[in-house]
């Protein structure tokens, strides 16, 4: 589909990720945190805004276990979670 040569046809151009690819977690070092994150998602009706703390923990685990390039988490969009969060439970989900 993305190689259609029609003029004006919308096609998708895949882009490489900004920071490259995640190395595979062959030993399951961060699997527990991943399960916590998935549990949080399921209980919150798959609302990402409410589970950002868990995703932050998962990424920290990855960095600690050499599965991700170490980087300040503010650069990954977790600026609001670095300070003690005022109230993360106040955001109401609107599916």
């Amino acid at each position: 589909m993305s190689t259609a040569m029609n003029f004006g046809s919308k096609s998708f151009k895949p882009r490489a990720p900004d920071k490259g690819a995640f190395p595979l977690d062959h030993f399951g070092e961060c699997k527990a945190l991943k399960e916590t994150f998935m549990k949080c998602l399921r209980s919150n009706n798959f609302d990402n805004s409410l589970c950002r703390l868990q995703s932050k923990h998962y990424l920290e685990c990855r960095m600690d276990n050499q599965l991700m390039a170490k980087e300040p988490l503010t650069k990954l969009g977790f600026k609001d979670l670095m300070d003690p969060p005022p109230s993360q439970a106040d955001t109401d989900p609107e599916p």
Partner: protein
Amino acid sequence: MLLPVLLRPSLCRPRASVFLTRCVRTLRCDAPMPPPLSRAEHFLLRRLPARLHAQSRGIKSRGRKSKSQEETWKSRNKTGLTYIAAAGVGMIGLSYAAVPLYRLYCQASGLGGTAVAGHDAEQVEMMTPVKERVLKISFNADTHASMQWNFRPQQSEIFVVPGETALAFYRAKNPTNTPIIGISTYNVVPFDAGQYFNKIQCFCFEEQRLNPHEEVDMPVFFYIDPEFAEDPRMARVDTITLSYTFFEAKEGQKLPLPGYSYN
């Protein structure tokens, strides 16, 4: 009276002779106007050719006219040809200029899903989530027919807002007894929204090796550009589908990284 007219027609100058006799007649008769042609005179005028006489009159003046006419034609042809040649060269130039111009136009109008000019890594730090606009991201996983991995998403959908980073997981399992190397690509629909879908890190475009009977979690860390909320074309878009497809990577085969021409 008519008899002399009928008896003396001359082929060289038929008309003149007819008129001559008539004029002579009028002179003799002292008539102010020549009488209208009688039937016999009509007959004579018609039957006898009058071409030669008429032709001999125009040749000399036409000769003079054609020369100047030819000159004007020549000069007109020259100007015409110059214009045509200039237009031809202009067309060739336009066709060369069209390539960068079209690229600029595509970037400005976003036609064809071209990447909106540059999203940089610094933006991730600075962006603020647009909390009013909730989007549903649904996940899809595919494998190539000959690829034996079991590949599926761990959540069917997730609700995000533009400007907020999100994490999602896929799971892949190698049920065979041999290690298999896979490589994946992705697709985002709708295509227009694809330009706002930015992946910070994922598992695509690089070879991933799975040992026999191994199962791994594959995360995708992404965000939707906050400018998504301001694009009028995206006003009706509420669902974005992210679809990954895994292929088997053969030894020694290099997959070209995307973004070779536009990024």
